[in-house]
């Protein structure tokens, strides 16, 4: 999360500026706050439009790019300063960067009332239609008697003040998330998922043919990728690329990385395609996801990706049948996010859980018995009525098998899955494999 802070003063010395600086540095492990300078902003004049001048444009760009704004206001004559009001006037005249922006108000004053009137005023000003900011309700942070509030290192002296400030800031961070979610354009829906990966994300390697069998080599060359004994710093540790490969290739799980642009960019290549639970070939890495699926499966693949991207679910479970009675193959589709909660793609994990079940039964002296009440075949789950097929939402090839009247929720595998699975939008459709009971 990225916030900007504005102190409503152009005086050489300002306690409000000091307060903002303190907030920015003291809570820097929680949120990135950049202080914006208003010293060069001219006094607003309707007949001398300086909207396009550097000082106003600087604020415009910074505010537009920020997730939220913190304003620290002094109190002069029971209201905010002219310097702050002037800034707001510029930002409500011919441009409106504060429109829809979450704003938190704080304030410091020499008196014990600590800018309460100025804050109330500021709230009213920010909510006027030309400004149209969204001010966090309640949670007034008033720093009264400010001349006594800081120590020599410009840190707040009073622990209770600091913890209240922390509480307020934490609430504001939640508020920013809520407001920005509300402001997000309408969800375009699953149909908008582009499995051809024609868009791009910041990691997309441009100028290399995604369909090429040697995409990995070409893209590595283009990006001067680390390899072999090059070190990679990780959260948490340091490995060489070789070590990273030993590590990932010794996982008893088939791992696949599909990025936020729906490009299949990695799998842990420790088996030949024919020996894999969900087969992949080295030449597939780099392919757009559309290449990896039969046309018929595409709507369902899109639905799953969309649910993960939009946060409707974080993990999608799918038992994939057809590997024989002594295997129970699960595909897990896990959404990946960065520290800011931004969607970064899908981690697909494929594994046979039967060995674990067998191990557990053997070592606890138990056995499997059929549940007489179950309306599904507990052993093969959703698959009873589906012809054997190897299917795979992210990168695998799917045969064109048509199901005949599936009797269970095909996504969760019903009773076979102990943990409740997220409810799919259309429960009678196998969203990933493309097996639909209606078709």
């Amino acid at each position: 999360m990225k916030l900007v802070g504005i102190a409503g003063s152009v005086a050489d010395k300002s306690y409000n500026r000091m307060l903002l600086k303190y907030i920015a540095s003291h809570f820097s492990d929680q949120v990135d706050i950049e202080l914006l300078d208003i010293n060069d902003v001219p006094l607003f004049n309707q007949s001398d439009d300086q909207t396009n001048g550097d000082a106003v444009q600087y604020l415009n760009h910074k505010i537009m790019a920020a997730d939220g704004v913190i304003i620290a206001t002094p109190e002069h004559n029971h209201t905010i300063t002219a310097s702050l009001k002037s800034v707001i006037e510029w930002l409500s005249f011919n441009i409106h960067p504060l429109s829809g922006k979450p704003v938190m108000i704080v304030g410091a004053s020499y008196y014990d009332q600590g800018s309460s009137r100025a804050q109330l005023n500021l709230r009213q000003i920010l909510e006027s239609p030309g400004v149209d900011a969204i001010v966090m309700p309640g949670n007034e942070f008033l720093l009264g008697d400010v001349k006594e509030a800081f120590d020599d290192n410009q840190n707040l002296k009073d622990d209770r003040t600091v913890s209240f400030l922390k509480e307020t800031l934490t609430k504001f961070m939640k508020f920013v998330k809520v407001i920005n979610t509300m402001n997000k354009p309408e969800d375009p829906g699953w149909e908008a998922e582009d499995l051809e990966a024609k868009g791009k994300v910041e990691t997309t390697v441009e100028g290399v043919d995604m369909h090429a069998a040697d995409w990995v080599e070409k893209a590595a060359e283009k990006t001067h990728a680390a390899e072999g004994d090059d070190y990679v710093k990780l959260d948490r540790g340091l490995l060489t690329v070789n070590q990273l490969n030993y590590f990932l290739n010794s996982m008893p799980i088939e791992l696949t990385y599909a990025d936020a642009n729906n490009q299949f960019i990695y799998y842990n290549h420790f088996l030949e395609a024919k020996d894999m639970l969900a087969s992949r070939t080295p030449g597939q890495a780099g392919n757009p996801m559309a290449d990896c699926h039969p046309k018929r499966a595409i709507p369902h693949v899109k639905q799953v990706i969309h649910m993960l991207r939009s946060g409707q679910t974080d993990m999608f479970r799918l038992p994939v049948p057809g590997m024989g009675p002594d295997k129970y193959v699960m595909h897990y589709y896990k959404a990946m996010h960065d520290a800011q909660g931004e969607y970064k793609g899908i981690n697909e994990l494929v594994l046979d859980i039967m060995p674990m079940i067998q191990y557990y039964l053997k070592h606890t002296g138990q056995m499997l018995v059929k549940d007489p009440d179950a309306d599904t075949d507990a052993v093969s789950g959703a698959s009873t009525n589906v012809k054997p097929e190897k299917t795979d939402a992210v990168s695998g090839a799917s045969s064109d098998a048509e199901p005949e009247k599936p009797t269970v929720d095909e996504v969760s595998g019903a009773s076979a899955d102990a943990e409740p699975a997220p409810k799919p939008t259309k429960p009678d459709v196998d969203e990933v494999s493309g097996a639909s009971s209606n078709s």
Partner: protein
Amino acid sequence: MHKFVAIVGTNSDNSTNRKLLQFMQKHFAAQADIELVEIKGLPLFNKPENKQVPAAAQAIADKIDQADGVIISTPEYDHSAPAVLMNALEWLSYYIHPLADKPVMIIGASYGALGTSRAQEHLRQILDSPELRARIMPSSEFLLGHSLQAFDDDGNMIDQTKLAKLAGLFSDFETFVELTKKLNHANEANREEIHDLDWANL
């Protein structure tokens, strides 16, 4: 005859608030001497450590000192008084206090229908603060909405009902000025208190 200072609450070149004050100056010429005062050109208030008020602000303060009362006509920007007017009032409360106990009439003109109701409320609150302590005429409000259409080519107010209201309020203001002169028992205390307000030495 009363002498009034009329502050144009904006730095805009084509201000309907200026027009309103110019109209009053002309229309009430037989009743009172109204001098228009501009606040354009004052530097942005930056709380200078040397406590020096710019000469232009001091000049306005001197005019206010000499006047029986002050009329302020305010536009409305973002539901409040414009920064340029707030700026002038910051200078006029920084180690000088020309507005203390001074009778003030607040009026305002805006393009929209509401005629600066919120800006006037805001201005009232500012003028009532301890550093300014003006004597604002109570229970009176002159709101000139749709101000771009309010005057004819000669600068006369078109709406006669509005004009009658303005004339009434203006006469009331003259009475209020006289009344305020009698409300003088606390003047000395007020003046002392206000001079004790020293931000730097709190």
